[in-house]
């Protein structure tokens, strides 16, 4: 098992699709799907070979790259990054398959960009060198920009500009922080970074992660991007890319900046709490399907940040489990939203309704995912949110109260979404014919839900296998 292979398979696949003169787009698309599946299979192989009894870095590679400043190509897997890589691989398979099935224009380019995005994201989760991390971090932006800008909805150009300027402004501050931290330590190797007490450097990282997650009030780009992107890109964006930000907090901010994290805990928690409640309220008021999912995703990311900034076992375990959960939930929800929009040609809730009639599979999938999303007891999201609240309770019961309120709000917006789509009177935009999910859609969305259900039965499958010998 080699971590570089995990990064290179999708990148090489993307390049092959670009360069190879395909006879028709269907073969190119099939090849893209094959690459995504191979990547997933390789990840499964990685899990089977992973020694969970040993903490620390697994399967590492370290090659000199930019030795003048002590930068190297160093990648490897921690137990917790392993699960995020798996999330990326799984969601990408769904996204590629959905894009293939939905018949996007210029499918070869489209799917190769999705694969490129996958490679960059996995790079973020596995990079063990600050600059390499930054390279992959920035590399995620390019395919996203093109994916939204070319294949997005009518407001895509404004959405991309907002998205890129927000994220680049954040990440360039991170570049300064990377440089300052690396030069002070004399190395950019994350394994060898000592603890830094410099609050400014910490803020450079924190702002970049806060924009990408996003934490309130850095979410200005989010609604437009999530609404304008094709559904499968929104699925990847909210399911996977936002997790890169949370991962950044866990991998870089916590171990390298213990003192600044403690100093800034209250402000960060305040912002995240505001984001959690505010995002939930916005989700409750959003007029369209994607708006609800987008703002709920925003709220959930803030909950995850709360869990991370509890800086204790329970909070971190909960945050990581919730990262995986939410990745699957929002990916499934965005794909369902895509399915609904395909049928009704709109996402406006006012024009939808009554879609359950004659569409049992759609109804079942949406209700199952929605119920898990609102953290019904017994679901994996419940387990995760319980851990988060338990962890943050140690830091002050007030935070836990905010979190509990938000769970109630989550139930409100999720049930509103479910009933606005499935129940109530038949909406004016809903076609007469009972067009249930097609077999392809079932094959794409149901595996995501199945993994969620599996995690609901066995959340310890992940929580017992993370943060061994890693942590502040």
């Amino acid at each position, binding site marked *: 098992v080699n971590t570089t292979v995990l990064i290179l398979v999708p990148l090489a696949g993307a390049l092959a699709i*670009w360069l190879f003169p395909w006879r028709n787009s269907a073969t190119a698309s099939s090849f893209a799907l094959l690459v995504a599946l191979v990547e997933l299979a390789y990840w499964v192989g990685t899990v089977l070979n992973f020694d969970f009894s040993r903490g620390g870095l697994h399967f590492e590679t370290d090659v000199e790259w930019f030795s*003048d400043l002590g930068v190297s190509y160093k990648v490897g897997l921690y137990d917790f990054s392993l699960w995020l890589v798996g999330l990326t691989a799984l969601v990408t398979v769904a996204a590629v398959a959905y894009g293939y099935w939905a018949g996007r224009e210029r499918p070869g380019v489209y799917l190769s960009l999705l694969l490129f995005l996958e490679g960059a994201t996995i790079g973020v989760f596995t990079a063990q060198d600050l600059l390499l991390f930054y390279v992959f971090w920035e590399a995620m932006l390019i395919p996203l920009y093109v994916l939204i800008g070319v294949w997005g909805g009518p407001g895509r150009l404004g959405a991309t500009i907002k998205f890129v300027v927000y994220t*680049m402004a954040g990440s360039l501050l991170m570049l300064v922080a990377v*440089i300052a931290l690396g*030069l002070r330590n004399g190395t950019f190797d994350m394994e060898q970074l000592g603890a830094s007490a410099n609050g400014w450097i910490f803020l450079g990282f924190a702002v970049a992660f806060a924009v990408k997650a996003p934490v309130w009030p850095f979410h200005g780009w989010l609604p437009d991007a999530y609404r304008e992107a094709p559904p499968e890109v929104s699925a990847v964006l909210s399911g996977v890319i936002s997790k890169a930000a949370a991962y950044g907090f866990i991998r870089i901010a916590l171990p390298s900046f213990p003192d600044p994290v403690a100093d800034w805990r209250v402000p960060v928690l305040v912002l995240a709490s505001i984001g959690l409640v505010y995002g939930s309220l916005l989700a409750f008021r959003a007029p369209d399907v994607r708006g609800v999912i987008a703002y709920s995703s925003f709220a959930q990311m803030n909950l995850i940040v709360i869990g991370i900034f509890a800086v204790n076992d329970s909070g971190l375990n909960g945050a990581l489990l919730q990262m995986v959960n939410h990745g699957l939930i929002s990916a499934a929800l965005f794909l369902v939203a895509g399915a609904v929009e395909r049928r009704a040609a709109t996402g406006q809730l006012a024009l939808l309704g009554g879609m359950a009639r004659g569409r049992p599979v759609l109804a079942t999938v949406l209700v199952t995912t929605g119920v898990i999303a609102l953290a019904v007891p017994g679901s994996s999201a419940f387990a995760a949110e319980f851990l988060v609240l338990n962890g943050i309770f140690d830091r002050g019961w007030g935070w836990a109260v905010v979190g509990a309120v938000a769970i109630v709000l989550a139930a409100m917006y999720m049930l509103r979404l479910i009933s606005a789509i499935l129940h109530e009177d038949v909406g004016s935009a809903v076609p007469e014919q009972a067009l249930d999910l097609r077999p392809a859609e079932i094959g794409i969305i149901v595996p995501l839900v199945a993994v969620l259900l599996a995690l609901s039965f066995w959340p310890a499958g992940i929580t017992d296998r993370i943060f061994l010998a890693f942590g502040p």
Partner: protein
Amino acid sequence: VSGFQTPTLDWAALSPELVLLGGASIVLILALFVPNRARRPLAAIVSGLCFIGAGITAGILFSLDESGRSIVADALRRDRLAELAQILVAGSGLLAVLVSYKEPEGEDRVGEWYALLLSAAAGMAFFVAADNLITLFLGLEWFSISLYILCAISIERLPALEAGLKYLIVGSFSSAILLFGSAFVYGATGEIGFEEIARAAGEAERLFFVAGLAMILVGLAFKASAAPFHMWTPDVYQGAPTPVTAFMSGATKVAALVLTMRLLVVAFPGEEALWTIALAVIVCLSLAWGNLAALVQTDVKRLLAYSSISHAGFLLMPVAIGTELGGRALLYYLMSYAAMSVGAFAVVAARERELGRPVGFPELGGLGWERPFLGLAMAVFMFGFIGLPPAGLFLGKFYVFSAAVERGWTWLAIVGVVATVVSIYYYLGVVRAMYMQPGEMRLAPAGGSPPRDVALHTGVGLALLVTVGSFLAADPLIDIARDAVDLLAFPH
């Protein structure tokens, strides 16, 4: 005439300059005797070979000259810094030859075109090796005059004439200032050699010495098109034939920046406190003005001209910092910047020829889909100018900012970051125009592609290769940069 001694010449040490100059004469003579039809291929092949030859000889000298030496009676310096700069100039020249092969402009002046290109490159090769103020001025004028003519080579076209004239007037003005400054420095120290100036600086007349330094800096900043001495750049870049612009944007930057660093470090180490501040101010102005003005441009060549002004800021940053790390950063940055800049203008040239009119944003519409290779290359260049992987400029910016932070000038790095954020908008504007124009734009002639321009595509491909290669294989290039600045005694 007794008492006048001709210096002994080390011809081998002058080989890059001689190859280029010889090539220029051969091309001119060939153009006289060769029939019209064969003129362009022959001239292009000869000049391409000469650029390759100059690059190779400079490379050989690079590997031989471990410690620098003075040649031609101390008028020129033979060291790795000069040789690396010559390699970069020759590389830009080679790309320019490839780009200009199908250039419709100046069609009836093929011989002159290539001869002037070669002679401009020879002038730059001479310039970067200058070791005293006279050779500095001679080299500057030599390549500048060649470029003045190249800009206005199709004299019937008014914008080209305007560009040439503007460049000539403003350029001569800046040369005059530089010459005046050199006279001041000579007057104050009684020396023209760089090292001798540094040695004599202690007893120099302060006022004239400092004024001379300032005026020389102004002259060099003109050539580097750094604000506030950039006024000529947009007009000249826009008006000149695009392959010439491509060459200028790559090679002139290399020459001006390398010589600025050499001059300041070798001749004026004592005045370091003055020139670091002066350059830092120029850096901030260039970054601010270049980026802000680029935001409102609609012509792509003009936009790239402002981008080149802002990059003059990024390039002067490590010079201002004045550390060895900065020196390496400058050279590494130049390697990928020169390739990207020439490549970007090459894509513009291709589009111009295809449509037969100047390229603004609307003209880029659909380029990405109609010409996948050129579109992809342009996108990589644009993302690279922003400082996104996989372009060497990503590491270049990282390197430059690192040098600033190491020197303790985090604020300068932050200025650079802010400038980069501003620049995102217009660089992405190009990508947006190529790929995301609303509606299906089909500007290219219907019914297939234009005559295939293999030379230009090769040029763009080479530029792309250098751009991405310098990102992936950074270490070998940095070793080269390290060797090149090893002999300079940086003030910090």
